[in-house]
């Protein structure tokens, strides 16, 4: 038995102590400074995107404060140019949306259904299936590219079919993590609710729709945000599965913007800001789910 008196103000647990120290005034000041430092490169990029080409190429963005010259040429160039040598990002923006939206909706739907089945229906080998799905998470995406491409060849998909390919690919790659997240969140739901619904004569379909779905909205939202950001920012999968220059997403176009020998890199500044608008909107409008959902399924492994 210890006789050392524990100060009353000091919380007993380690987590509590860390928490207390992190909420002090100095800690806040330090985190504020860190946040500022982290924002500086983005700010520099943002300022650069409004500077004339010659300025961008010859001196740093901080010279803007002593010699402010503002132009919208960079944005005009990357968004609305019509030749192959300008950005035409407005067109590719649509492509990105066409690729991203189904690539988010499909996995969210599939994973929610699969997670329900794995968490609340009882059948033999259920846990093994769950482990097997999650184990697929370990397979690096790069290993699956060529076999998947060969698999698509069986169907001889052309032109418009290329969208089907990329939706399929993104959905496949999202399922392991999605099932894992949603399954853990769903199995945390109190069994009593589900039992009560069943006693009242509800079928699985009805329980899923009317009981489970409303309860897992935060988890669905956070998974959807993850998936959205991943697909929107994806370059590799798009490069492999979207043949033809006309249906590629924004990221692929952005990678080409600087020109054959990188001599037009001033466009990258404005191009970058055009491409982050949508992710920013998505993140800001759904961030309350994001914070809540970050912990979804993470407690139980």
């Amino acid at each position, binding site marked *: 038995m210890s006789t050392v008196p524990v100060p009353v103000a000091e919380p007993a647990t380690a987590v509590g102590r860390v928490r207390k120290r992190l909420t002090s005034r100095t800690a806040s000041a330090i985190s504020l400074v860190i946040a500022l430092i982290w924002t500086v490169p983005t700010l520099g990029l943002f300022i650069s995107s409004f500077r004339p080409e010659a300025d961008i190429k010859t001196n740093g963005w901080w010279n803007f404060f002593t010699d402010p010259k503002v132009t919208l040429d960079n944005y005009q160039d990357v968004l609305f140019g019509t030749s*192959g040598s300008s950005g035409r990002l407005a067109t590719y923006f649509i492509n990105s949306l066409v690729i991203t939206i189904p690539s988010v909706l499909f996995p969210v739907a599939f994973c929610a259904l699969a997670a329900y089945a794995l968490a609340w229906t009882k059948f033999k080998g259920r846990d093994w299936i769950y482990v097997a799905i999650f184990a697929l998470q370990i397979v690096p995406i790069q290993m699956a590219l060529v076999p998947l491409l060969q698999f698509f060849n069986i169907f001889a998909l052309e032109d418009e079919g290329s969208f089907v390919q990329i939706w399929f690919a993104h959905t496949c790659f999202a399922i392991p993590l999605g099932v894992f997240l949603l399954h853990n969140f769903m199995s945390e739901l109190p069994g009593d609710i589900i039992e009560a619904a069943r006693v009242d004569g509800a079928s699985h379909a009805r329980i899923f729709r009317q009981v489970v779905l409303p309860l897992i909205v935060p988890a669905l939202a956070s998974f959807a945000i993850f998936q959205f950001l991943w697909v929107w920012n994806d370059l590799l999968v798009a490069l492999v599965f979207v043949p033809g220059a006309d249906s590629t997403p924004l990221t692929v176009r952005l990678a080409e913007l600087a020109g054959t*020998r990188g001599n037009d890199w001033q466009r990258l500044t404005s191009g970058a800001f055009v491409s982050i608008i949508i992710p920013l909107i998505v993140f800001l409008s759904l961030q309350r789910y994001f914070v809540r959902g970050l912990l979804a399924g993470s407690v139980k492994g």
Partner: protein
Amino acid sequence: MASTTQRRIYALVGVAALALTAAACKGGDGTTNDNLSKPECAAFKDYSGIAGKKVTIYASIRDTEEDLLKQSWKDFENCTGVKIDYEGSGEFETQVKVRVDGGRAPDIAFVPQPGVVEYFAKGGKLKPLGDKAKTTATQNYSADWLKYATVDGKVYGAPLGSNVKSFVWYSPKMFKDNNWKIPTSWDELITLSNTIAAGGKLKPWCAGIESGVATGWPATDWTEDILLRDQGPQVYDQWVAHTVPFNDPKIISAVDRAGSILKNPAYVNAGIGDVKSIATTAFQEGGLPILAGKCALHRQASFYANQFPKGTKVAEDGDVFAFYFPAIDAAKGKPVLGGGEFVVGFADRPEVQAVQAYLASAHHANTRAKLGNWVSANKGVDLANVANPIDKKSVQILQDSSSVFRFDGSDLMPAAVGSGTFWKEMTAWITGKDTKAALDAIEASWPK
């Protein structure tokens, strides 16, 4: 809360459906008739019977050059009725392998590395040129060029565009003001460098070898260009084929000669910094101090003309121009280091072979040359069609019978060396590594 979420989901589904419809509406079109009987199509009458067919091309050429290239075969498309579907990508080098392995090879690719042509040819993926394309290619290109796309006696492709790397950029005005003469021999080049350095106003040379993941390539070009001059084309070929090892005394001598300029603190890095700053300066910016009057000489390929800001006059009487990087022993001919891309086919359908034949023809080379900003080794190119002075100079050098042309060696070596250790070790060499140690390291990395 649930209802707003539901509404949001419905909205998303709605957008998705709309997007799908939009995608599906992108219908195909295809003209099935050719226009060969029209008088303006007389030049294309040999390419009949391919109307309504589609040929896909995949290459690394994009941006402005992509526009000009598409324009150059527009008449061909209109007259023959064939449709050329071109896709340019910065990830070409890795993606073409993925696509070929995945069974999605393009019909035609423009491959800038002869090593890659050999890789695909040996793997049985490439189809040799058709008869017509082969005849056209041998007629228009020298054996020096065609041998780089010949594997086991079969010709797989003809060159399309080319570039000349043996150039030194300078400012004609600066030369005139200081009464400097364009050096025509190696000794004159060194004398000029010493004069400039002794003048004390500026250092003679500027360079930059930073290029993202490809950092180091401009230094390998320096080495190759000087090896070609220091040891001659035979040793160069043996070095590329690895019958002369990388750390051979001959190679060390050539690299040291490059070092006598690149690693000489009295010579570099004009307008930028010290010797080590070469490694951190982007190759795009390595020659810009010339324009600012802070640097006199910059060795870089003909395509460097595009790096100068818009409005810069690139001409003999303009703001910047380039002279031929002089030979060490003029009696042995004019060594020329260069590069280019080869038009190779993964399919041998008649329309694919017809496009290959057309791209090898003098007609296409001249059409493309008229649009500007292009260099070709095609013997049929009429100099009058090449407007841009630096391109004209390049074409002249390529067509000069005393030129000894050699392809950029790092593109011919195995990838582990040519786009791996050679780049890395030359970068280390710039930042202070000893010549012998750097070359030993490259030699050790050569695939057995």
